[in-house]
């Protein structure tokens, strides 16, 4: 059961890296969050703690429904081309991400001392998701891609937290969720502003402040 969920997370991340258009990217993000929800739900069943259930539910509501809906609304409101503006074409970025997988596997295995085999895989997948988020942010031009990259990294962290130490204290989890949601709204607000002022959301052209 654990393996299927992890495979699902991996697959959605690879899809995200290949995506060329923003709606596709959001859809794959939705899949990844759904698999993440399944993972936390599995852990919740195993640990049988009430707050884990609430967190899983919260995760589903925010990450799977609210944020993607919010992002899609932004795209519709802005008459901007849906092209993601890749620095690196799809094939090369896929190769990169494969390299990242190996890197995170080595990192998890050698440096962090995992207790058992299952935890090692979980650690590797978590770090891989973080690295992929990083990749998305650096090698995609549009502002929305950067927001999604940020969310993917946050997903990776959440996966790490829930698997490794059985999740952080309940109150902190809620606060982190709330923070993530607020930051997405604020970034969306700024994307509107950029679009109004610069008539495009290609962040790479934003280079008036030099030196």
């Amino acid at each position: 059961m654990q393996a299927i969920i992890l495979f699902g997370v991996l697959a959605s991340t690879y899809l995200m890296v290949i995506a060329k258009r923003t709606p596709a990217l959001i859809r794959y993000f939705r899949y990844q969050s759904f698999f993440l929800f399944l993972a936390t739900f599995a852990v919740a069943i195993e640990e049988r703690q009430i707050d884990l259930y609430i967190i899983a539910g919260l995760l589903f509501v925010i990450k799977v429904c609210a944020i993607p809906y919010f992002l899609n609304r932004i795209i519709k409101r802005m008459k901007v081309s849906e092209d993601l503006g890749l620095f690196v074409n799809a094939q090369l970025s896929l190769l990169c991400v494969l390299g990242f997988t190996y890197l995170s596997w080595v990192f998890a295995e050698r440096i962090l001392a995992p207790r058992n085999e299952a935890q090692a895989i979980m650690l590797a997948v978590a770090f891989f998701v973080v690295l992929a988020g990083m990749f998305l942010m650096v090698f995609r031009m549009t502002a929305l891609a950067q927001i999604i990259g940020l969310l993917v990294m946050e997903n990776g962290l959440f996966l790490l937290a829930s698997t490794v130490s059985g999740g952080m204290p309940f109150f902190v989890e809620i606060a982190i969720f709330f923070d993530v949601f607020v930051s997405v709204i604020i970034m969306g607000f700024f994307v509107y502003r950029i679009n109004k002022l610069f008539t495009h959301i290609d962040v790479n052209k934003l280079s008036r402040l030099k030196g």
Partner: protein
Amino acid sequence: MQIFFILAIPIFLAAGAFLIGKQKIFCTLNAIGYLAVLVASVMLLRKMVLSESANSYFSFIYFDALSAFFIFVISVIAFAAALYSISYIKKDIDSGVISERKAKIYYILFNLFCFSMLLVPAVNNLGMLWVAIEMTTLISAFLVGFYNNKESIEAAWKYIIICSVGIIFALLGTILFSYAFSLLGDVKSLNWSDMVANAGRMDKNILKIAFIFILVGYGTKAGLAPMHTWLPDAHSQAVAPISALLSGVLLKTAIYAILRFGIITIKGVGFAYFGNLMVLLGIISLAISCGFILVQKDLKRLLAYHSIEHIGIISIGFGIGGILGVGGALLHVFNHAVTKALMFFGAGNVVNKYRTHNMHVIRGVIGTMPFTGFMLLMGAFALAGMPPFSIFISEILIICAVFLKGYYLVTFLLLGFIAIIFGAVVHHFSKILFGSIPKGMSVVKEPLSGKMAFLFLFVQICALGIVLPFIKKDLIWMVQKLFQG
């Protein structure tokens, strides 16, 4: 008890700003509110230093001398910024740059920003520490993008993206710390006090990696060298009192967070690891800021790079450790905050009058604005580290500490960079301040509140500069006290 008082006032003021429409009445109320915060923090600091006990309420609020010191620094600068923003915002409204409604938003954000910054040192749980810092980023993003023109929006966007990435790394580090802590017993808690208690038994390897993530994460927020790229853009585009708060105090809260985790790693892995990392990043930030200051054209960016330089010096100070090192660094935190705030206020006035950031255009500030010009001149020399002012004392302490520890190369790099930066500062500021007044510039009379803010800060720079060599006992004692956490 005062801690609630300190945290509550900004919230009330934020609500007040929301309710009271008339901006003129509210701004003075705001200043009085922060005066109360200042008084409370002074009482708190005195109580903490004397009573030596770290007390915590409902396992959520926890503070000791270190956090009391940082709360004191934050409240000093917040009060000065509140005082200054009275005249600054009024001038902006009169000149039609911002509308009445925007001023209201400004005050709401200002208070929320101060609340979140005051929250950071008070929080015990490391997760909540992360949340508080995330809040400061989000709120200050609005304040950076306040003027809604192309540059400020770009600066705000860069600020929010880079700091969010940095903070995510910090979250990664926090999780690894909790993972290392959970390896010991199976109890799951992120409370700092528990972690410090049994830091010795934690797994060394994980602590090392965790601290690297923390250092890079909160280092981005603190503006340490390779991750400083957002700082010049954000500080040069923000509203003047806000950029004073940003570079005076926000960077220090991030340093505070690094210190908190640093204490754990020192107990866990040993001082050398923490020290070398901090000194390395300090030297890199000194080198980069020195390069940029030399060829800078924009006044506010020059001050922003100066913050990077001083943050570098502070991190070297903490990295060296020992009574002199840490004492010097803590002193430098306060001195730099005060001086930088004064300089940003002065720069705000200048930019307001000359309508440009470009230093080649600004001439004869002493002629057009005698009071601000004089303050800028004194501030520039204070910043560059001339003796009658306090920064010189703390810099000498840090150099002494570095020298006594035996890092000769670091000392000569430090002295070299400080000398080059001194030359650049004098070169830039003498060009701006002196020289003939450009045509059509009238001598302007500054409002009283603006002057009060300047005087309040200037007195502190000079007082410390002169008094400090003589009061020595309690500073050292406080340092020892602080460092055990």
